[in-house]
């Protein structure tokens, strides 16, 4: 019996094993079906390499803020936009191009009385007319409302009456038969009668709310935060779920939420043969309605679409060319993507750049460099993900594995990395040749580009820097000296009752704000840590916090703790100085200035309040600069020449004048250009607001450029910066984890120092 069961069991075991093996083989053969890459390389290069790809071209347009673009059936392109005028309202004009965007002619304009209206957005239909949403005050002036206008190809405009069953329309778009579709507030869209404004059809969006809508022929697309819903515009019936489109759109958890009123993160277009196109930061994609494939025609990483700060406004498809209207800063631009059969599909050269965290200036420079060098592809990758799933140490270990395997990057952005260790191990090449070239071209601040010079060789250079700054009451700023003096000044100030003398976050996080101006002083010559100086740092930062704590609002303490918990690391990316603090009654503020605008705000507040000035912040060191975007070239770079070329490019005026929050440029030329972008005392482009602490009234503050005296003061201060802040992350983590406990009263300064010394002794002993 037992034998019979074993035989039967053995047979069934064999059968099960056979079935599982087949299943495994079938599973291994499965491939994702939603995504293919377009085989653009139709032709063959001389060496057999694939040829042909879309190339980007920036087209000259009339000097207008472009709202939309449309391709009309007669082969013309039409733009609609508002002319720019100083302080006044420009006219809304329509411009046509019959030669694919090379030249433009004014075709029509909206009535003059519309010049004062502020259009949130305007959409063009296929015939050259369109509709738009106006943002204006209500009749009683107590509220803000939306008004809707429709216009024809000649510019004749009429107001679209409001419909009782529509709360508010955010934007319009048009179906291929001229149907007017409006995106409602919340999670709905409406097909509306263009004359009467009546709702002809209502569409419900996916999920909780609709981010935006798009049209592809007779198909309405409603984009939610994790799904796109499709409808037949004519019948209102929902269309089948498009798995491949959804998979591609939301593949990487891409967030399409609209963050500005003037642009979006994705725009849709279509051609009459049923092909849908969309543009996002990842590139231009094509999809046949109802199909299973999404083709990537243009890679965002190789063109301007992935430039940080770029928003999308509209797109048009004409023949094989794509026209995309983008916003960058205060301007719009028109990009054309045309197929070039003579351009290699994949650039011949590749340079790999690696950083732990995203560096926006480098991301920007990648796009600029690739546009200027179509034969070179720059692949920029980061080690840390946004969700915090990978620690910096893990990312470094992975990077080191790649380096040892010979597949490391060509250029390393060394922020957060063990630079000294890499220099010692020979990972970094000598880039003194690049420094010489940069000296000639960019006239950099010498101390900054020589900070990592050892025995005549240069191994790393930062592309930007931040400047520790102290700002506030002239008298107090003048009295502040080193760390001890600053702490005494803050602790003994009796003039500021109520809210305290310094900005609350400066007090709550005094150890963080003062870290970079103190850390370098803790190193003895032999590399060991000076306990006395470290103890002084703990004692003085605690003194600053303790003196202000009774005056700080409980709510602010709570916010500070929440922010600290969210960030993970106690050292945030930016520790800016906010000039508005002085309008709220504070007399001192300190941080790390990273843009001209910060100093302009201090100057602007000085205009209003008076007696406000700034000076370099000193701690246990003075004249400190915080390097950012520290570049090194790998000694094992696959293409050292191309790597060096890109590094040199990063120091050109073109790259150095891009300011995206990473700090001031190390190029003296670029710094001067940014400082003198406007005349001293001129009105800037920004304005902001705060509340009067006594009356609660809103105060609007316009940005004014620094006075000549302030500009000279800033330039002189920057010229004197000669000490690079200590960037060792092990030291920083060890100190800030203990100083935080010390400031909170969880341990004494001596205990905190003891814990830090224990960690650092181990770290230094490792060699």
């Amino acid at each position, binding site marked *: 019996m037992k034998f019979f069961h074993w035989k039967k069991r053995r047979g069934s075991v064999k059968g099960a094993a056979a079935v599982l093996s087949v299943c495994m083989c079938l599973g291994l053969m499965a491939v994702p079906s939603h995504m293919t890459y377009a085989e653009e390389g139709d032709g063959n290069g001389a060496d057999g390499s694939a040829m042909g790809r879309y190339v980007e071209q920036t087209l000259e347009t009339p000097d207008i803020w472009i709202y939309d673009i449309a391709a009309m059936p007669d082969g013309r392109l039409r733009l609609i936009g508002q002319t720019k005028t100083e302080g006044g309202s420009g006219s809304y004009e329509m411009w046509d191009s019959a030669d694919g965007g090379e030249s433009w002619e004014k075709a029509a304009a909206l009535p003059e009385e519309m010049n004062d209206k502020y259009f949130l957005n305007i959409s063009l239909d296929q015939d050259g007319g369109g509709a738009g949403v106006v943002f204006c005050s209500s009749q009683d002036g107590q509220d803000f409302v939306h008004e809707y206008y429709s216009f024809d190809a000649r510019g004749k405009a009429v107001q679209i009456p409001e419909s009782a069953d529509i709360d508010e329309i955010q934007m319009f778009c048009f179906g291929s038969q001229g149907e007017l579709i409006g995106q409602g507030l919340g999670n709905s869209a409406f097909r509306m009668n263009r004359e009467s404004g009546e709702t002809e059809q209502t569409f419900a969006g996916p999920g909780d709310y609709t981010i935006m809508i798009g049209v592809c022929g007779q198909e309405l697309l409603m984009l939610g935060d994790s799904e796109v819903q499709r409808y037949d515009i004519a019948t209102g019936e929902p269309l089948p779920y498009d798995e491949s489109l959804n998979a591609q759109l939301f593949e990487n958890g891409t967030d399409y939420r609209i963050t500005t009123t003037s642009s979006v993160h994705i725009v849709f277009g279509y051609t009459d043969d049923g092909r849908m196109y969309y543009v996002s930061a990842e590139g231009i994609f094509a999809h046949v309605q109802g199909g299973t494939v999404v083709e990537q025609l243009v890679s965002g990483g190789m063109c301007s679409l992935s430039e940080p700060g770029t928003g999308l406004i509209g797109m048009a498809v004409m023949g094989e060319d794509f026209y995309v209207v983008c916003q960058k800063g205060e301007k719009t631009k028109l990009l054309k993507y045309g197929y070039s059969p003579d351009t290699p599909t994949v650039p011949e050269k590749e340079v790999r750049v690696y950083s732990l965290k995203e560096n926006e200036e480098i991301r920007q420079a990648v796009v600029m460099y690739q546009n200027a060098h179509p034969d070179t592809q720059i692949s920029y990758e980061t080690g840390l993900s946004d969700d915090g799933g990978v620690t910096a140490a893990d990312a470094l270990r992975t990077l080191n594995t790649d380096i040892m395997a010979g597949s490391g990057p060509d250029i390393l952005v060394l922020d957060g990395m*063990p630079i000294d260790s*890499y220099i010692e*191990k020979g*990972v970094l090449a000598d880039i003194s040749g690049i420094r010489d070239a940069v000296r000639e071209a960019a006239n950099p601040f010498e101390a900054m580009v020589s900070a990592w010079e050892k025995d005549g060789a240069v191994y790393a250079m930062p592309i930007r820097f931040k400047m520790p700054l102290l700002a506030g009451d002239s008298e107090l700023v003048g009295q502040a000296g080193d760390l001890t003096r600053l702490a005494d000044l803050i602790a003994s100030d009796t003039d500021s009752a109520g809210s305290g003398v310094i900005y609350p976050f400066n007090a709550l996080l005094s150890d963080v704000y003062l870290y970079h101006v103190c850390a370098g002083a803790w190193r003895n010559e032999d590399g060991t840590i000076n306990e006395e100086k470290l103890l002084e740092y703990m004692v003085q930062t605690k003194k600053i916090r303790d003196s202000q704590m009774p005056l700080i609002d409980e709510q602010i303490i709570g916010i500070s703790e929440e922010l600290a918990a969210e960030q993970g690391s106690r050292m945030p990316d930016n520790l800016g100085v906010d000039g508005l603090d002085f309008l709220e009654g504070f007399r001192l503020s300190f941080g790390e200035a990273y843009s001209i605008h910060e100093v302009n705000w201090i100057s602007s507040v000085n205009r209003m309040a008076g007696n406000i000035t700034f000076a370099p912040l000193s701690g246990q060191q003075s004249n400190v600069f915080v390097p950012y975007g520290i570049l090194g070239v790998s000694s094992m770079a696959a293409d050292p020449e191309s790597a060096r070329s890109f590094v040199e490019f990063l120091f050109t005026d073109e790259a150095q004048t891009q300011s995206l929050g990473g700090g001031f440029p190390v190029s003296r030329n670029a710094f001067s250009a940014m400082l003198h972008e406007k005349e001293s005392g001129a009105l800037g482009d920004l304005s902001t607001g705060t509340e009067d602490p006594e009356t609660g009234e809103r105060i609007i503050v316009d940005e004014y450029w620094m006075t000549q005296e302030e500009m000279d003061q800033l330039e002189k201060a920057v010229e004197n910066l000669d000490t690079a802040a200590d960037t060792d992350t092990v030291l920083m983590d060890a100190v800030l984890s203990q100083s935080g406990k010390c400031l909170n009263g969880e341990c004494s300064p001596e205990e905190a120092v003891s*814990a830090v010394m224990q960690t650092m002794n181990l*770290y230094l002993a490792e*060699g």
Partner: protein
Amino acid sequence: MRKKRIRKVRDWTGLLFVLPSLAGVTVFTLIPFADVVRRSFTAAVTGAWVGLANYQTVFANTAFRLAASNTLRFTLTCLPLLVTVSLALAVLLQNLFFGKNLLKSIYLMPMAVPAASVVLVWKVLFHQHGLINSLLEKMGLAQVGWMSTGYAFGVLVVSYLWKNLGYDMILWLAGLAGIPVEIYEAARVDGAGEWRCFLSITLPNLKSSLYTITVLSFLNSFKVFREAWLVAGDYPHQSMYLLQHLYSNWFRDLSFDKIAAAAVVTAGIVFVLIMLLQKLWETD
């Protein structure tokens, strides 16, 4: 002649059966280890030959000496404790009439708990403001820095024992089950008591199990690094700074030459120890 042929066929057949496993061990263990030995004589990145310089650096390195002494201290503390306590539990369990299987499961459960969960429990218990300190405070006693003082070593030992007790106990139970009952019966007939039976019958018959359990427990002792690292990071209290901490930090700093040299030294010592143990067992 025929016997010789059969034996030859059996030898080749045996080799063929072993070949896939041997290939896997060669590719994933032996060859990489040979590469590590090679790297221990070269510079980290450039690969230039440096002779014994890496070994000199490692032996002179204070962090290595500290880590090695901590690891040795940990092993010498934990192994005897684990072996004796798990044996005692196995003997007790074997003589239970009911609840045996339930108790086995309970003792084995810690092995199934993921390291991350263990770490959470550690933090809840041993944090400065954790459960144990709260209890101490309520009892009017001073709080203890469990993870920031020498007590950290004790916490590590307790964690290791807690996790591995069940596993060793099961191995002991398997060994105990292999001892013929007749020997005990014969001994009892001759008037031997429980203690005499344990010393003269149980222990000698468990020698082979002792060798296996000792070696396995020794290898498992290296896994305690997971919890230690998750709780205390790259630089824990000195008393729990183990060899793996040092290797992990050297890895971050690209000091592969030092890791290779230290790994070869460690592997050599472990190998010698195991060979000595084996010789000891064989002699007996």
